[in-house]
C-alpha cells in the first residue's frame, strides 16, 4: 500500500467516516444534496458558457450574466465540496482506487484551471462584449472546454458506481 492509500484507509476507518458509511439514511441524504447541488454549480456555469457562446440570454451582456451568476456558482461549489468531502470520507479507501473518481478529480482541476485562465485573459475585456459577435474566439473556446469538462465531471460522478 502506498502512503496515500494508507491515509485514505485511515480516513475511512475514522469514527466519522464509519458513521456515514454504516448509516441508515445519512449517506443517502448527503448523496442527494451532492446530486441536486449539480444544478447550483454546473447549471449556472452551463448557462454562463451558453451566454458566452451567444446561445441564450442574448439581451443581457456577458458581464451582467457573470455578475448575476458567479455568486450562485461559488455557493454551489461550497455545497458540492462539503458534501463531496463527506462522501469521500466514508469510502476514501475505495474511491482512491476508483478510476472514474480519479478522472473526475482531474477534470475538476482542469475546469478550475480553465476558469482561471479565462478570467486572467479576459477580465479587462468583458465589459466591451456587447453583441455576441464581439466575444473573442478564445473566450468562446474556453466556454466550449468548460461545457465539455463539466459534462465529463457529471458523467464520471455517476460512473463511480460502476467501477
Amino acid at each position, binding site marked *: 500500500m502506498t502512503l496515500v492509500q494508507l491515509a485514505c484507509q485511515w480516513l475511512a476507518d475514522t469514527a466519522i467516516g464509519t458513521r456515514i458509511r454504516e448509516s441508515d439514511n445519512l449517506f*443517502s441524504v448527503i*448523496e*442527494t444534496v451532492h*446530486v*441536486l447541488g*449539480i*444544478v*447550483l454549480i*454546473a*447549471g*449556472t456555469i*452551463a*448557462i454562463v458558457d*451558453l451566454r458566452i457562446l451567444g*446561445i*441564450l*440570454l*442574448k*439581451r*443581457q451582456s456577458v458581464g*451582467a450574466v457573470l455578475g*448575476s*451568476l458567479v455568486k*450562485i456558482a461559488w455557493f454551489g461549489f461550497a455545497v458540492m465540496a462539503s458534501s463531496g468531502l463527506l462522501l469521500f470520507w466514508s469510502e476514501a479507501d475505495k474511491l482512491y482506487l476508483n478510476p472514474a473518481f480519479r478522472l473526475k478529480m482531474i477534470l475538476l482541476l482542469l475546469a478550475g484551471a480553465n476558469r482561471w485562465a479565462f478570467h486572467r485573459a479576459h477580465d479587462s475585456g468583458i465589459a466591451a462584449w456587447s453583441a455576441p459577435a464581439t466575444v473573442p474566439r478564445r473566450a468562446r473556446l474556453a466556454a466550449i472546454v468548460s461545457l465539455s469538462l*463539466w*459534462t465529463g465531471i*457529471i*458523467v464520471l460522478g*455517476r*460512473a463511480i458506481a*460502476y467501477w
Partner: protein
Amino acid sequence: MTLLQACEWLGSSSIGTAIRTSKWGFALIEMVHLLALALFGGTLLISALHSCGVIFKGSPPGAIARELGAAQLASLLAMIVSGILLFADGPLRYYANAAFRVKLLLIAAAVLTGLLSRFRGEAKVAALLSVTLWLGAAVAGRAIGVL
C-alpha cells in the same frame, strides 16, 4: 388496456428489453437524465431568483424567464424522454414504488404551475411554488433508489 397492462407491454417491448439487458444502456440514459437536470434546474433557479429581485435587477419581470424559455423546454423534454426510457427498463417495479408515484404527481403539479403562471400574474409566488415542486420531484426521484 389497463395502466398495469400498458406497463407490462412497455417493459417487454424491444426498447425496454434492450435497456434492461445492455451493459451500459441504463447507465447512459441515467447520465443524460442528470445532464438535462443540471440545465433545467439552472434555468428554473435563475428565473426564480430574478422573479424575487435577487439577480438581473435591471431586467423587467418575466424577461429572464422568457429568454431562458427555449433552454428550459429543451432540457425538460430531454428529462421526460430519458425518464420514460428509464421507466421502460422495469415499469412494474416503478409502478409499485411509492416514491415514483409521488414524483409523477409532483411533476404534474409543477408543470401545471408553470403553465398557469404564463397566463396569470404573481410571478414571484409561481416561481417559488415551481422551485419547491420541482425540488420535491427531484428528491422523490432520489428516493426511488433508496426505498
